């Protein structure tokens, strides 16, 4: 009889059915963009979507001892130096993404990003989203390869992206990173394998805007090194960036201030020359746009 009464309100019975179903509440939109600032985020372009991205890193915001010249160069914007980064990435599956980029200085890179688990509640409880990101970079600069071995032009990066969306507005991401350089100049402290640990996050200001930040620390291979001309060099182990995301509906614009002038992750995390403590930041921006090129929805 109870059932008969419940059926008096048909919509009520549908709602009851719906709420009694064990649902998979999969967390989406942990970050707005596929990048936090310089680093990859756990997000990837949707299945069957091609994303095109342009990014610029300008010259130093404020060079020490240059005084007013910094202003005449409009804080690095008009310094005549900018690194251009152009990339395409395409997702064959919801969990698999491949990309290709030119990163300036005749360097090219290609990568795969694989989602290992997704933050969700309900049917299964998983507190974090985990991606594995693998990147290969080649230096195609004209001239002979180091030690005349083409293989020496390659370097690789492996990264685990572990992110949690704590609330609608706040997400954090942890990024342990291993960089392998096939070639390093001779030097007692020079090393092929470099370890980093990064932390990134975003705080949403509104539905369309967010503040993002990232920090990464390099644990080895930055002190008392020798460069290719055998002169001593020290790199800065810290990378610090802060960005502002603006989602216009079709594009995502990112404006950022970062302590590097390179647009390549490997350079940023293994041989960064810009010290954020001295205020060696540079301005930059990223525009990305994604196109649905494969139909995934039945539309008649």
């Amino acid at each position: 009889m109870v059932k008969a009464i419940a059926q008096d309100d048909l919509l009520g019975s549908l709602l009851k059915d719906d709420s009694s179903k064990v649902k998979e509440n999969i967390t989406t939109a942990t970050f707005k963009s596929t990048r936090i600032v310089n680093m990859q985020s756990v997000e990837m372009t949707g299945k069957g979507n091609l994303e095109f991205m342009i990014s610029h890193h300008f010259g130093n915001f404020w060079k020490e001892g240059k005084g007013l010249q910094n202003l005449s160069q409009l804080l690095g914007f008009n310094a005549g130096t900018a690194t251009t980064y152009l990339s395409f990435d395409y997702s064959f599956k919801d969990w698999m993404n491949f990309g290709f980029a030119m990163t300036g200085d005749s360097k090219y890179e290609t990568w795969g990003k694989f989602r290992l688990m997704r933050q969700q509640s309900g049917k299964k409880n998983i507190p974090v989203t985990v991606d594995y990101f693998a990147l290969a970079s080649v230096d195609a600069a004209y001239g002979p390869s180091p030690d005349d071995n083409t293989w020496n032009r390659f370097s690789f990066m492996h990264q685990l992206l572990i992110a949690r969306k704590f609330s609608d507005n706040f997400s954090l991401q942890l990024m342990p990173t291993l960089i392998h350089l096939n070639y390093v100049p001779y030097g007692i402290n020079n090393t092929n394998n470099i370890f980093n640990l990064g932390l990134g996050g975003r705080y949403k200001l509104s539905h369309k805007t967010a503040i993002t930040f990232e920090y990464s620390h390099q644990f080895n291979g930055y002190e008392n090194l020798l460069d290719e001309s055998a002169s001593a060099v020290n790199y800065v182990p810290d990378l610090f960036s802060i960005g502002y995301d603006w989602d216009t509906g079709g594009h995502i614009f990112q404006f950022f201030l970062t302590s590097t002038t390179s647009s390549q992750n490997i350079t940023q995390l293994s041989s960064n020359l810009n010290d954020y403590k001295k205020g060696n930041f540079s301005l930059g921006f990223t525009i990305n746009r994604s196109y649905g090129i494969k139909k995934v929805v039945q539309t008649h």
Partner: protein
Amino acid sequence: MKKIITILFAAIFFVNFLHAQTYKTRDGYIFFNPNKDQSHKDYASASKEATAIFKVETNEVALLVPMKTFHFNNALLEEHFNDNYLHSDKFPNATFKGKLTGFNKDMLTKDGVYNISSEGQVTLHGVTKNFSSPVKLEVKGKTATFNCVFKIKAEDYKIDIPGLVKPKLSDETPLLATIVFQLN
């Protein structure tokens, strides 16, 4: 004891009897294309997971579609749809409840196409509006297909469309529902 069992049987029988008058489906198809020019489908979306229930005795119908089952070709649009426009975490379902007019039971036993109509309330984005629309009922053997077009005005349901995309969208978005019931 015997009495209880008898009552129990009677109850089960009664419930089943009632149940036999009610048809249900879990894979209703809802499609919409908000583009002004309907031949462009860049913003089109569809859900295949609408649930519907139809009570023959009283001509009552109800339809429920979880917002997150709507999928788009561009994943970014899907995120905007849920996060910025329909606020799907706050308002997880769109529903319709109403009555069919011009319907009679005999239609279900004879193959054919019948033009009837429905009247009721649509709830979307937390706003409930009265609604009526023609319905095409197609009966073929053991299936009854209801085809209905809901015309939805975004501002009626307090859905904010940014000025930038507004010129590309039609004022009234036709929402096409195709609900197939298996008759038994």
